[in-house]
């Protein structure tokens, strides 16, 4: 993937809350069509990074370019247009609890396009099926869904407008291993078929080994290293070594190797 186009370009990002500096001089690129895994210890500012890229948080300094445009210095209208080309899956789904799943998926369509209701219904049903939910889920309310189904429903809403970039905040957290593996495959499938670029925050080592093209390690207030998994594993840093060479890291690595051997 040489001469790749960077769809997200973060330069010299600085975030702070009061006296506490979360990010200092943080640089990161995400290239079109890749799945970038973002890892880091608790409190290292992974979610803060996501929030400042999608524009939910105004950084204290630096620049964020999304699809080639400087998010911090463009007008409201253009910004809203760019935001509609991003889909975000929040950690707990953030489905609107007063709306059915289908209505949740239709919210962005209703806001950004004027479509006949029947067409929206069909498209919503399509997205729900693409997210791997059984037919009939659309009529249900978020409170009637299991944890895994909530994530899938939230994913259906995130891809409602065919975004260019999909942001996922710990998509497999709280799912059982089978559900988590199925969700990983779903993201792979959607990436291939919808041509998505995926920005994925995760603690799940299996997810990293299974679907990520590159991994960015957030530590010491910046992106320590962002590269392929093989190179990141060998990176000379105590935290990175602990993370990938610890018992869980090695187990995930072994599992990934076994999978490859089988394939």
């Amino acid at each position, binding site marked *: 993937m040489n001469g790749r186009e960077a769809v997200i370009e973060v330069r010299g990002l600085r975030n702070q809350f009061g006296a506490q500096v979360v990010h200092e001089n943080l640089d990161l690129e995400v290239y079109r069509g890749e799945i970038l895994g973002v890892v880091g210890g608790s409190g290292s500012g992974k979610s803060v990074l996501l929030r400042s890229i999608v524009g939910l948080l105004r950084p204290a300094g630096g620049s964020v370019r999304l699809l080639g445009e400087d998010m911090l210095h463009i007008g409201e209208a253009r910004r809203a247009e760019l935001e509609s080309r991003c889909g975000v899956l929040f950690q707990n789904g953030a489905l609107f609890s007063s709306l059915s799943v289908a209505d949740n998926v239709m919210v962005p369509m209703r806001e950004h396009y*004027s*479509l006949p209701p029947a067409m929206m219904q069909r498209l919503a*049903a*399509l997205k729900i099926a693409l997210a791997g939910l059984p*037919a*009939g889920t659309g009529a249900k309310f978020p*409170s009637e869904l299991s944890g895994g189904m909530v994530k899938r429903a939230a994913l259906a809403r995130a891809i409602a407008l*065919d975004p260019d970039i999909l942001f996922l905040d710990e998509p497999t957290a709280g799912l059982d291993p089978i559900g988590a593996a199925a969700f990983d495959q779903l993201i792979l499938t959607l990436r291939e*078929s*919808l041509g998505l670029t995926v920005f994925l925050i995760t603690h799940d080592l299996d997810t990293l080994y299974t679907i990520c093209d590159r991994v960015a390690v957030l530590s010491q207030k910046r992106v320590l290293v962002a590269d392929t998994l093989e190179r990141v594993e060998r990176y000379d840093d105590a935290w990175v070594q602990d993370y990938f060479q610890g018992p869980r890291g090695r187990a995930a690595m072994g599992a990934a190797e076994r999978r490859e051997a089988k394939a």
Partner: protein
Amino acid sequence: MPSAPAPAASAPHLSRDDAGVLVASGDWTLAHARALAGRAAALGRSGTGGQERRVDASGILRLDTAGAQALLDLAPADDIKGLDANRRALLDAVAAAAARTETGGRRGRDGGVLDLFARTGNAVEQIGNDAWKLLGFIGLVLATLARSLPDPRRWRFTSLVFHIEQTGLDAVPIVVLLNFLVGAVVAFLGATVLKDFGASIYTIELIGYSFLREFGVLLTAIMVAGRSGSAFTAQIGSMKSREEIDAIRTLGLDPVEVLVLPRVLALLVSLPILTVLAMLAGIVGGAAVCVLSLDISPTMFVTRLQGLNATQHFWVGMSKAPLFAFLIAAIGCLEGMKVSGSAQSVGTHTTSSVVQAIFVTILVDALAAIFYMEIGV
């Protein structure tokens, strides 16, 4: 990997060539979905019955899921030619997903007379259920109280004092102010009506009667229902939605004893005290109006008030305070216990708690008024 930077937007186009193949070009995206649907419908009608359906999609500039679905409306996936590998993957994914969707209508209300009856019936049933549950809960609270009273080690003093402060002490300013103002208003109203009979002086009896027997306790109870009953529901409800009630239970404790009893007992202490203050504030409010604008001297006011059988009326009013306190606390706690899961549920039950508590308060007050009238006190 997917397409190069998006080319300039261009409207989607669909036509039929000489060989009968549908030729699609332009942007087949969600932004043009309405136009696409119209175009496809028009061509579908113009096509002859048994015509073979094939689509040449090589001219398409941009394609998303909405566009893919529109293509699939024209022809099956295998008969759509001219797509590159990525778009083929998109089309296949959409075709596979579309096969799994069901195009059922939504559950809707018919909005007719039948619906009206059904909702009325549901509401009546709901009221019955609520009343039944409330009675059950009152029984449960009383039984728990009876069990824990003889055992001082199970009394929760810290919690009790905390709730007395929250529901009693903190409510003093608002309750006093409210009753003072209502006292003044009642005095004005009474004076206006009674002046025509030359009986302005009876304003004093009016204030004494109304605040000692009714207004003092009723206004306080309504204030406490809105202030503390709702707080009980919100506190217990948010604990319920975070599974804290379940945690209490698994730790071998009784949620009724830990959470409900201190609140009920606290209101049983606070509400009577607040009621006394409310009666005083109401009478002072009335006295202020009498002295300042009706030319009744303070001495006269006090003398006439003493002429009234004040002690008896005071106890009639006070006898209702513990009853209201118990009902308000029980309803507040019960509604909190009914919360399930979401934050929305906490809001619903808090509203319901206040409405029920005020309703029950006024209902019981009316029954008590009839009762005392009949027995002649």
